[in-house]
């Protein structure tokens, strides 16, 4: 029950065949103050690698690409009124989307927490 990460700074928490997805602490720090998150519609089918969401700070808009293919079963409605959740609790309350994954084995391609930490340290 641990988080997995991508090189694009998304995290995935896979529980059974439902994946919760958000952006990492490093990502929110780089983005600065988040002002809006554009999330997909419930029911949408999104393949791995396709655009999942858009995170807007004041001066920039960043695409978030889907780390694991599936159907959107829930979006974080709380983000509409409180986009600050992404900054305050990026791995918890700041989640974006829950997907019913089509192929759970895709999770193996992602980094675990330690590997991601090393990856981030290698940046800059």
């Amino acid at each position, binding site marked *: 029950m641990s988080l997995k990460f991508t090189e694009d700074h998304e995290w995935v928490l896979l529980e059974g065949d439902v994946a919760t997805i958000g952006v990492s602490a490093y990502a929110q720090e780089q*983005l600065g103050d988040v002002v809006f998150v554009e999330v997909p519609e419930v029911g949408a089918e999104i393949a791995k690698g396709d655009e999942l969401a858009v995170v807007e700070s004041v001066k920039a808009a960043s695409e978030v*690409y889907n780390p694991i293919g599936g159907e959107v079963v829930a979006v974080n409605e709380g983000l509409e009124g409180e986009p600050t959740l992404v900054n305050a609790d990026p791995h918890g309350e700041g989640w974006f989307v829950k997907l019913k994954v089509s192929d759970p084995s895709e999770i193996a391609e992602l980094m675990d927490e330690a590997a991601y930490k090393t990856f981030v340290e290698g940046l800059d």
Partner: protein
Amino acid sequence: MLNNKGRPTQPTAVSGGAGSDLDTFTGNKALSLETPLIFEQGVPGRVGVDMAEPKQVKSRLGGLERSGAIGMPDLSEPQVLRHYVRLSQQNYSIDAGFYPLGSCTMKHNPRINEKVARLAGLGDLHPMQPVSTVQGALELIDSLAHWLKTITGMPAVAMSPAAGAHGELCGVMAIRSAHEANGEGARTRILVPESAHGTNPATAALCGYKVESVPARADGRMDMEAFAAKLGPDVAGVMLTNPNTCGLFENDVKKIADMVHEAGAYFYCDGANLNAILGRTRPGDLGVDAMHINLHKTFSTPHGGGGPGSGPVVLSDALAPFAPVPFVTHGADGFDLVEHVEGEAAESFGRMKGYHGQMGMFIRALAYMQSHGSDGLRQIAEDAVLNANYIRVGLNDLLHSPFDGICMHEALFDDSSLKGTGVTTLDLAKAMIDEGYHPMTMYFPLVVHGAMLIEPTESESHQTLDQFIGAMRHLLTKAQSGEAADFFAGAPYHAPRRRLDETGAARNPLLRWTPAEETTAQELSAAS
């Protein structure tokens, strides 16, 4: 994924502001005068415009009379004048000072242009007057078209687009129309350099094209090998700015044009940087098929706080038939307007906006061109490029330029010399405000980290440039001391407002004044 521009947009509390002994009762500071919103100053029944009493008639409004108040304030003339004069005093302007804004060409706006734009018989013409009653107006547009074609060496020009971005749309629409007419409608890609302005991909998307980015070489020009690799039979066109957004002339431009044409595609040139090459070369001689011209940049029509602009587009013979309507023609019987997609305009891609184009800006631009003449126009480019290089050499020991050597009309620096100081490009810009300068263009082009793009234009004197260089050197030295991060983070200190909370503005958009509930009720009952 990440645009690494997450710089602070919520100012942190730094000392030097409100609550000190120097605060005044009114909040004014001598000539720096505050004024609330116009909605907070009205008294019902005040009059700002005298007019006749409406005739008592039987209404023909079909029973759809407005009921209830609109909610606007009533003010008198002196109040309104004072309000907007006070507001004006909170604005920086070229008339007052230097704008080293790269890519914007903030040059002097001649006042004769304003005078002629207001002449009776020019500024007051109705667009739908019979053509026989506006021959002078049509002649004016035709004359401006002639100057634009001669300056650019192109055979045709579309005058109607309302601004640069609108002109871009015109150019790309002409390209797509040409392809469709030639049975080449399957072309789907537009190539742009990675340093391109955001309007380029936005425009391409509106025309149903996908944009592909071509990387740059180490010297800041487009990588020709990468470009060749991306060209193919499905490429509709290339959109290039020349000089490019890094202030450099694309010396392979003719080769690029040849390659584009060989691939059956068209060459669109973003004319934002035309100021650098006036009278020195012509886009038509470089193989360009379409180029928009920003009259509000190169030809001095005033920026007016954000507009209006005007973006005529010069076109090659291949694209001219597809130009939008309306356009002016000159025949034996005088001047005429072709307003519909039929007859000689049968292949036009259509109308882009209401009426004939930004006539007010045409008048000003033509006056500017006549004032300068062929000799003056060439001098503009020479002095603009001279000034930019003068600034470049005045700062390049303290600021790092990603590209060595001569620049054109703008000098580009990155923020590598600020590394470790705690001072960002943004902070430097805000400190420039206190020194009496509008900041340079920042964080553009996106390909250069912490970019600072400086375009002085030909309007600035030797003294102004020296003073600017001196001020920048002073600020850079201070920043590079490594001990001034707090000072810079708190700038500006002397402007009518300190740094503003842009995060809050984006999270909770408050886009209008709203009457308090009790006031609305009062007004509504007073109106009924």
